């Protein structure tokens, strides 16, 4: 008999050791998330994937699925909290979608559409985050960083390079650092072919000379909402 748990009233099968997120994903059910990626160990930092397990809040990317557990996901209560978290992401960085090359292919933007975020709600911080354009092939625009740390993990675990690191504290201090003497990307062994170069869910790590190459209407999330795409990709 296969093991199952309930997710918004639907039976979800899982194998022991799978997280709630992994099991839901395999079943084609979307749980909003930003820092989780199917190819990497869960980081559990963005908290967007918070669900209610038997009435208590928990991160679905780090919590192991257990037989018979009752999980709430897309309830009004949880989506309201997620929308508020998204609004905080949007005000603590500089997220100007009209001038961003990642627009239409951005997980943060698509998630905000999914959760019907109509405004940033809070006062804007407008932090000063200079870009790093030193590398010949890649631009780093830190204005859009959401500190998911996927680039840190990908560079260390897949590329074996350790180009990125998280550092600093607070909204204005915490940021991605570049592991080179000068702090510039050009002075690392980072390459466009690295896994870390294509892992960014938002518009920080951008290949140069390729901006806006897909027209509006044909970009990833123009076609269908992010939740539908999880459903379509399920095995």
């Amino acid at each position, binding site marked *: 008999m296969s093991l199952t748990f309930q997710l918004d009233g639907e039976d979800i099968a899982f194998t022991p050791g799978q997280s709630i997120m992994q099991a839901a994903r395999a079943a084609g059910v979307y749980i909003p998330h930003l820092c989780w990626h199917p190819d990497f160990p869960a980081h559990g930092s963005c908290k967007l994937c918070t669900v209610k397990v038997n009435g208590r809040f928990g991160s679905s990317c780090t919590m192991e699925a257990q037989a018979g557990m009752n999980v709430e996901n897309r309830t009004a209560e949880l989506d309201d909290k997620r929308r508020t978290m998204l609004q905080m992401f*949007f005000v603590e960085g*500089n*997220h*100007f*979608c*009209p*001038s*961003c090359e990642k*627009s*239409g292919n951005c997980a943060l*933007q698509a998630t*905000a*559409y999914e959760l*019907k975020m*109509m*405004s*940033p*709600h809070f*006062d*804007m911080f*407008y*932090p*000063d*985050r200079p870009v790093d354009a030193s590398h010949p092939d890649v631009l780093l625009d830190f204005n859009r960083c959401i500190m998911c740390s996927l680039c840190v993990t990908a560079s260390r675990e897949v590329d074996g390079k350790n180009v990125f690191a998280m550092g600093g504290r607070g909204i204005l201090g915490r940021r991605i650092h570049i592991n080179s003497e000068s702090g510039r990307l050009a002075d690392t062994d980072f390459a466009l072919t690295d896994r870390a170069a294509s892992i960014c869910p938002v518009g920080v790590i951008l290949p140069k000379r390729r901006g806006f190459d897909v027209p*509006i209407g044909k970009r990833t999330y*123009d076609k*269908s*909402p992010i939740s539908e795409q999880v459903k379509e990709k399920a095995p």
Partner: protein
Amino acid sequence: MNAPMPLVKKLRVATTSLAGCFGCHMSLLDIDERILKLLDLVEFDRSPLTDIKHCGPCDLGFIEGGLCNAENVHVLREFRTHCKIIVAVGACAINGGLPAQRNHLDLRDILEEVYQTEHLLGRAGIPNDPELPLPLNKVHPIHEVVKVDYFLPGCPPSADAIWKLLTDLLAGRTPSLGHGLLHYD
């Protein structure tokens, strides 16, 4: 023959572009022939379309653009005083948009570079005519200054998104934009 229109009081609508590019107003005009239907339902008060200079009592106020100078703030407050419902239309009204890209620069440095030091630009000095509204130190979205009832994102929001919001409001529904109509770009 057309049936006679029922005698319904038309809603009064005011619109303005603060620190915007009038692109959202252009997108409003992109509703094309639906504007005739709109004119059956609303009449315009203060708006770039009417050239009325000050806002009277209105049902609906459409605000394009954010706040980059003192006059923007005065106009916004006039709208909030006279309009029952305020809608923030477009990226600039909602998060500052393109004008807010100056926010990480010092205002004096910008003015000096544009009007004094940059050799390809003017060298007439920083304008100081008392008629000119003073720039704000930073550009702000309008919800930081007045209560905003509804938000319509987009750069600009598409004509269909504007039409959906208008028809929802005119029908007394809470505006709701589905996939394809809700866009930040």
